[in-house]
C-alpha cells in the first residue's frame, strides 16, 4: 500500500478512528497488530507468512538466549536467528543475482549448461524487518535488551505499519520501552493504551504533509527529467549529466526522506516516536558527516551491528579501512542485488577511508582556522556534495557502460552546451523545482526544525500552510506516480 494513494488515506483514517473509539487497551494493542498485518497483506498477499515466520523465530530465540547461562548455547541460538533472517533475506534478495553471476562465470570457463533463474519476487520491506529482528536478538545476546514478554508485543514491534515497508529501521530498544511505558502509565485494564494527543496529532500531520510534498511535488515531478537523461545516458553532454545527477540526488532525497516523514508522522499521531532518518544530508561537511545525516537508521545499524563487531577503528589503520570498505559494500548490496549498488557502496567506502586517512595524516586540518570560517564550511559542503552526487550516478544508472560514461562526463567536463540547452528547455519545470528545493532546504537549515515551528504556529497559519501543501500536491498530481524508490530495497 503506497502512502501516496487513496488506499492509505482511507486505511489510516479508519485506523485512527478505531484506535480513538476503542477503550480497552488490550483490544487497541491487538487492533494495531491486525491493522499492521492487513497493511502488509494488502501489498504482499501470502508473503506475509515470511514476516510472521521471522517474528516467531526471533521471539522464541530471543527468549532462549536470555534464559540461557551457557555462552556456547547463546552463540548457537544467535547463529540460528542470524541464519534464519539472513537466509530469508539472502534467498529472496540475492539468489537470482548469485545465479546470474555463476552463469557469467560459467560462460568464461565454458560450462556447457546454465543454472535457471528462480525469478523470485522480492517481498516488500524484507530488508527492513529482518534488520529489525536481527538487532533484537543481537541486543539480547549482548545483554543490552530484555526480551519481549509477549509475542503480541514483539509482533507489533516487527510489523508496526508506519515503518514496516521502507523504514526507518527501528530498534527494539527504542520501540518496546515506548509500548511498555504506555502500559505502565495506564492505571487499569480499562484505560486506553494509545491516546491521540493534540500536540502529537498536529506535529504528526505537519510531518506527513512535508512528506507528501517531498514525494509527490518534488520527487515525482523531477523524476521525468532524470529518467530522460539516465534511461540511456550514452552520448549526453557533461552539463546534461550533471543536471540529471543533481535532479536524481533531490529525487531520491525527496522520495526517501518524504517516506520517512510520513512514517514518522503517522507513528507520532499514534503516540510512537520513531528515530530521525534524515537530517539535511546535503549540508554535510565530510563523508562521515553525510552518513550521520543520510538514512541514519541504516547507517547507525551498520555501525553497531557490523562495523564495531568487525573491530571498528580500534585496530590498525589498514584494518579500519578494510572494515569501512566491507561495511559500505555490504550497505550498497543491502540496497539491491546488482553491481551498480556495489559500486555505489565501494565509492562511499573509499570516501570514508580517504577522509579518515587524511584526518590521521593531518590531524590538525579539521581544527584549522579556514574550516571554521563560513567560506571554509561552504568549501567543505561543496567538496563533500560533489563526491556524494558523483556516487549517485551508479545508484541510478544500472549498466556498467552507462555508469562509466556518465561518471567520466561528470568528472571530465566537455564544456559542450548545445544539447544541454535543449535539455533545459524541455525540463524547465523540474529545473525550477530543483532551484526551489535548494532555497527551501537552505531556509530549513538556517531556521532549525521548520516542521516543529510550523506545527507550533497559530491555527490560522497552520491552516494556510496545509492549504498550500495540499494545493501544490493536487494541482501537480500526474495520475501515475512512481513507486517509492526505497520500496524495492
Amino acid at each position: 500500500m503506497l502512502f501516496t494513494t487513496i488506499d492509505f488515506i482511507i486505511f489510516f483514517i479508519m485506523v485512527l478512528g478505531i484506535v480513538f473509539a476503542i477503550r480497552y487497551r488490550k483490544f487497541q494493542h491487538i487492533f494495531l497488530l491486525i491493522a499492521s498485518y492487513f497493511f502488509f497483506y494488502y501489498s504482499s498477499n501470502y508473503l506475509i507468512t515470511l514476516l510472521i515466520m521471522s517474528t516467531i523465530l526471533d521471539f522464541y530465540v530471543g527468549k532462549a538466549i536470555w534464559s540461557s547461562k551457557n555462552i556456547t548455547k547463546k552463540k548457537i541460538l544467535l547463529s540460528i536467528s542470524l541464519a534464519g533472517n539472513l537466509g530469508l533475506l539472502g534467498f529472496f534478495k540475492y539468489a537470482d543475482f548469485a545465479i546470474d553471476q555463476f552463469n557469467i562465470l560459467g560462460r568464461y570457463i565454458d560450462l556447457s549448461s546454465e543454472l535457471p533463474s528462480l525469478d523470485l519476487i522480492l517481498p516488500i520491506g524484507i530488508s527492513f524487518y529482518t534488520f529489525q529482528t536481527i538487532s533484537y536478538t543481537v541486543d539480547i545476546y549482548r545483554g543490552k535488551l530484555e526480551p519481549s514478554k509477549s509475542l503480541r508485543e514483539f509482533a507489533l514491534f516487527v510489523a508496526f505499519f508506519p515503518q514496516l515497508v521502507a523504514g526507518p529501521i527501528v530498534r527494539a530498544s527504542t520501540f518496546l520501552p515506548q509500548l511498555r511505558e504506555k502500559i505502565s502509565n495506564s492505571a487499569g485494564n480499562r484505560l486506553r493504551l494509545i491516546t491521540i494527543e493534540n500536540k502529537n496529532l498536529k506535529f504528526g500531520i505537519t510531518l506527513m504533509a512535508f512528506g507528501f510534498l517531498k514525494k509527490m511535488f518534488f520527487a515525482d515531478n523531477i523524476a521525468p527529467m532524470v529518467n530522460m537523461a539516465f534511461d540511456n545516458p550514452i552520448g549526453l553532454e557533461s552539463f546534461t549529466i550533471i543536471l540529471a545527477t543533481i535532479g536524481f540526488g533531490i529525487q531520491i532525497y525527496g522520495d526517501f526522506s518524504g517516506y520517512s516523514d510520513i512514517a514518522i508522522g503517522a507513528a507520532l499521531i499514534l503516540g510512537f516516536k520513531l528515530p530521525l532518518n534524515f537530517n539535511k544530508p546535503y549540508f554535510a561537511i565530510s563523508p562521515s558527516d553525510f552518513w550521520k545525516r543520510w538514512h541514519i537508521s541504516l547507517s547507525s545499524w551498520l555501525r553497531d551491528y557490523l562495523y564495531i563487531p568487525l573491530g571498528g577503528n580500534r585496530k590498525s589503520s589498514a584494518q579500519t579501512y578494510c572494515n569501512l570498505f566491507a561495511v559500505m559494500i555490504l550497505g550498497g548490496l543491502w540496497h539491491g542485488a546488482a553491481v551498480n549498488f556495489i559500486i555505489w557502496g565501494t565509492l562511499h567506502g573509499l570516501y570514508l577511508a580517504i577522509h579518515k586517512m587524511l584526518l590521521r595524516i593531518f590531524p590538525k586540518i579539521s581544527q584549522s582556522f579556514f574550516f571554521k570560517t563560513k567560506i571554509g564550511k561552504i568549501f567543505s559542503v561543496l567538496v563533500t556534495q560533489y563526491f556524494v552526487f558523483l556516487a549517485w550516478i551508479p545508484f541510478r544508472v544500472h549498466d556498467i557502460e552507462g555508469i562509466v560514461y556518465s561518471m567520466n562526463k561528470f568528472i571530465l567536463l566537455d564544456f559542450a552546451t548545445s544539447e544541454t540547452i535543449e535539455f533545459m528547455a524541455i525540463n524547465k519545470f523540474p529545473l525550477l523545482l530543483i532551484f526551489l528545493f535548494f532555497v527551501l532546504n537552505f531556509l530549513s537549515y538556517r531556521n532549525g526544525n521548520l516542521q516543529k515551528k510550523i506545527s507550533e504556529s497559530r491555527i490560522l497559519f497552520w491552516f494556510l500552510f496545509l492549504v498550500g501543501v495540499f494545493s501544490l500536491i493536487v494541482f501537480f498530481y500526474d495520475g501515475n506516480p512512481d513507486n517509492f524508490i526505497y520500496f524495492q530495497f
Partner: protein
Amino acid sequence: MASTVIISITVISAFLLSIFLLSLFINPVTNPVDILNLDREENEFYSIFNNTNKSIFLIGSSQIGRLNQTYIQEGINTDKNNYTVFNLADNSDTPKKRLNSISHIVKIKPDLVIYGIGHIDFADFIMKSDLSKPETILPDPAIHLHKNIEKFEKIINMNFERWNYAKSLTINLIKNTIGIDDTKGTEDLTRENSPFYNLRNSHTIVLDELSLKRSLESNKSQLEKIYLEHENVAAIKEIIKILQTNEIPTIIISIPVSDVMLNTISKVDQKNFEDILKEISQDTDVEIIHLHDKFRNMSIWNDPTHIAYGSKSTVVNDRVLSIILENLE
C-alpha cells in the same frame, strides 16, 4: 494547543479547500482533452484543409509518424500523378481514438488512406512495478476497494479520471499566463504536411541492439497479452467500413517492429495478432499487408517499436511507396 476536533476540522477544511480549488480549475463539464488543446488542434487542421491536388493520408500512431511523407510523395509524383501525401499520425493513436475523428477524413475524401496497425493496438499492458507484486492466491483487498471507489464515482456521477490531468493542466495554465509557447520544442524537426506528430532530432538516431534492449528494459510498462476481443479490433473494423461506405480506398499495413520487440512477444500473442489481422481482413474484405516482421533485423531502429526517421530507414519508406504505387495503378 488546539483540541483534536479543531485540528481535525482544520485538516479536513484545508484538504477540501484545495480540492475545491482544483475542481474549479478542472471544470467537470469540460473535457480535459479539449483543455489540453488536443482535439482543438485536430479540428483546426481539418476545418481549414485545402488541397487542390489529390490526397493520400497516412494514419496511425507515432510509428506511422516516422514515415517520410515527403519522400513518398516525391516517389509517387510523376508527369501522370500529382498527389500530396499527408502524414496524419498522432502520438498514442489507437483505432478507438481514431474512430472519433474519422468523420473529418471522410468529409475530405482522400484518394487513398494507408492505415498502420500494430501489436500494441490489440494488447493490454502491465506496469512493471506491478510485476514485483506476488500473484494473489488469497483475496486481494485492493481490487475490492477500487471496485467500490468506482461504484462511488458512479453514484455521485463524477469521473475522477480527469483529475489525472491536473499536472498537465496546471503547467499549461502557467505557460499560458506567462506567455510561454513551447508546443514546438527547440529539438523539433519541421516538416510539411504532418500536423499532429512532433518529430525530433533524436528520432533520427539508429540504436544498436544493446541500446534497443536497454531502451526496452527502461519502459515502465510491458505487453501483457494480445487478444481477439480487444476493443480496438471492433474499432478498426468500424473505421474500415466507414471508409468503404464512403468509397475511400483503404490499405491496412501491419507496422514494422524490431527483432528486440518481437522477441518479447510470446508465440501465443504472435498468433493472436496474426489471427486478428486475418479476422479484420475477412470481415472487411480488405487486404492487410504484413510488414510487422519484414524489417526486424535491419539497422533502422530508433527504439524497439519505432524506425529512425530519415535516410537510414529508406527501405521502409520504399516499401510503403511501392504499396501505394501498386494501388494507384
